[in-house]
């Protein structure tokens, strides 16, 4: 099914400038409100959307934001598109296209496929330029139709991963590593060389392991010890040991075109919350269990 067929010209807006999200959402909701049998008012709808937005960001790195809510009893999936001339700031991402979706509580498949289609569209720079040139709703819809984007495509890791993750080099000391982790509030970093080639990964447990010697790991219980300072060793080694000494190099990574279910499967089976996403040996991004949770499950 073509993405264009899901769009209704009535629900497509062109806005030059908006002070905030609320203002735009209000206009979008008003356009949609007549199209289905809503049991709640536009104000209540707006509140729900803003509340969902506050939970986690709905913006994607390509400059598209997909705010959405699920409500019971509308038995449809409604889409409103807003083209912005002046970008709106979504937690650091400049958003120029907003797609609002209101869908039935149980209809997750269609919703995810729509999201995927919009994200795919937003990544195509030429297509986006073409769309931004359009002046009215009908033109926009026919332009999207010409692009032939279908909504059958499923969501891939590349659609929801963090494309610009913080990384670290193998020759950095543990002190530098611990600074990076601490400054960015991270627990996982991919290790790459100067050309961005993926070398391995390091997480906070690899770092802590330096402070817990192997012989302690061999003991079944440590309950008799309460004065041991396990991190002493870590502090001693911090300036001497390098990321290369502790990183995992087992080549456990995912590819950008893996499906979301594959990522979830790997995470559960490997008991790992983060995976580097690698294509042709080059790091493409990082996907976390939280990405899957917030962008797919809770989406």
């Amino acid at each position: 099914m073509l993405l264009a067929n899901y769009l209704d010209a009535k629900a497509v807006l062109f806005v030059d400038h908006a002070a905030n999200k609320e203002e735009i959402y209000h206009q979008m909701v008003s356009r949609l409100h007549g199209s289905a049998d809503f049991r709640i008012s536009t104000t209540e709808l707006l509140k729900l959307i803003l509340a969902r937005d506050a939970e986690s960001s709905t913006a994607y790195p390509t400059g598209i934001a997909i705010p959405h809510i699920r409500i019971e009893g509308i038995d449809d999936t409604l889409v409103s598109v807003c083209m912005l001339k002046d970008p709106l700031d979504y937690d650091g991402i400049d958003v120029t296209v907003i797609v609002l979706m209101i869908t039935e509580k149980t209809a997750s498949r269609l919703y995810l496929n729509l999201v995927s289609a919009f994200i795919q569209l937003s990544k195509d720079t030429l297509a986006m330029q073409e769309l931004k040139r359009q002046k009215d709703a009908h033109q926009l819809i026919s332009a999207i139709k010409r692009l032939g984007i279908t909504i059958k495509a499923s969501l891939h890791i590349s659609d929801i991963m963090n494309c610009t993750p913080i990384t670290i080099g193998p020759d950095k000391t543990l002190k530098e590593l611990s600074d990076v982790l601490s400054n960015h509030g991270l627990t996982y970093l991919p290790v790459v060389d100067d050309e961005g080639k993926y070398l391995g990964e390091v997480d906070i447990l690899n770092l802590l392991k330096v402070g817990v010697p192997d012989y302690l790991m061999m003991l079944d219980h440590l309950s008799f010890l309460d004065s041991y300072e396990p991190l002493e060793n870590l502090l001693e080694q911090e300036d001497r040991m390098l990321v290369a000494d502790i990183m995992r190099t087992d080549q456990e990574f995912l590819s950008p075109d893996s499906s979301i279910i594959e990522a979830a499967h790997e995470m559960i089976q490997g008991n790992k919350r983060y995976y580097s996403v690698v294509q042709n040996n080059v790091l493409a991004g990082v996907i976390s269990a939280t990405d899957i949770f917030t962008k797919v499950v809770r989406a």
Partner: protein
Amino acid sequence: MTMMLLALVVFAFTYLLIITEWINKMLAALMGGFLVVLFGILPQSAAFAAIDWNVIFLLIGMMLVMSVLKETGIFQFIAIKTAKLAKAQPLRIMIYMFVITAVISAFLDNVTTVMILIPIVLLIANQLKISPIPFIINMAIASNIGGTATMIGDPPNILIGSATELSFMDFIFNLAPIIVINLIVSVGVLHIIYRRGIHVSSESRARLMEFKEDNLIKDKKLLYRSLVIVFIMLVAFTLHDVIHIEPASVAMTAGILLLILHNRKKVDHVLMHDVDWATIFFFMGLFMIVESLKQTGVIDLIAKQIVQLSQHDLKTTSIVLLWFSGIFSAIIDNVPFVTTMIPLLKTIGTYFPDTSINPLWWSLSLGACLGGNGTLIGASANIVSVGIANRNGFHISFKEFTKLGMLHMFLSLVISNVYILIRYF
């Protein structure tokens, strides 16, 4: 004749693979075992029938018992208690640990014993800020000495006990006294080597005394029940002559009961981590290979030669066997050696119809078990201990281990030699 040669070739090839460690020794033994069948040296049924299930189930049973006993925290408790009893003085800790290791490994597998005790010694040495290397080498040596004392302490004894009429108590009566003497001498040696003392600050000592070993016993009820079952198991071993239940069945029953007590539903963890399948299959393969030597007459041939060479002199044969087993086991794994020697000694026994060949069994046991101390690669406990040390940044070289090990092996064999001469001839 062709079959005889073929059997010898398979045997030699397997041995070569085990010595060179070109492939994993379990794979080598199993491959040899099935080559025997594939070449038609033995029918499959005969090869399978050669597997001594008494040995296999005794090993598995003891592994099951250990898996639960380890969980109770009792061994860590004993180790820490020992260090505290030694008032945190290094030489005293070393001597106490030497004895404790020997005693525990008399009843448990040596490798398991060092795997439980060495991490604790590393921790203690870390707290005392001293090198753990002398402790580690000496504990590996102690586990090999202690393991010789009982029928269940070391694989050679398990093999001999199962293959002969010798009972659990026979092992205790004949081997335990010499092992006690051996331990006393070894402790004397330790005292001489390390008497200059290893200095520790009183602050470090205080840190060690702070250990709260009582916290280790999480489940007192489980511990008491486990100890009762283990006690009954040991009593049943000693009453072997009276109750006529083989050690394998006793150990398996104890193991199963303990597992039920500990965790009725979950066995995956035990099967994956606590039962050493590689060892079990290694034994199985060896039994099959050695059976082919027996069936094709190789064993008979060699036995005849040995008896002729020794001119029917049991005394000389015993002493030669002791030293030969000792030196041989110092260089390679003693399990394949003892598995091969058992049918050989049994055949030799038929040439001495009027006298008991028991001294030969004790010579084989003492030589094979104590010889393991000779070099770093002489016993699995040595390799495992040094491996743990290496992983923790304490590098023990082949030479460093062998210097001390050789000394202990030589002393043990001399003591054993004197003992055999006095007691049996």
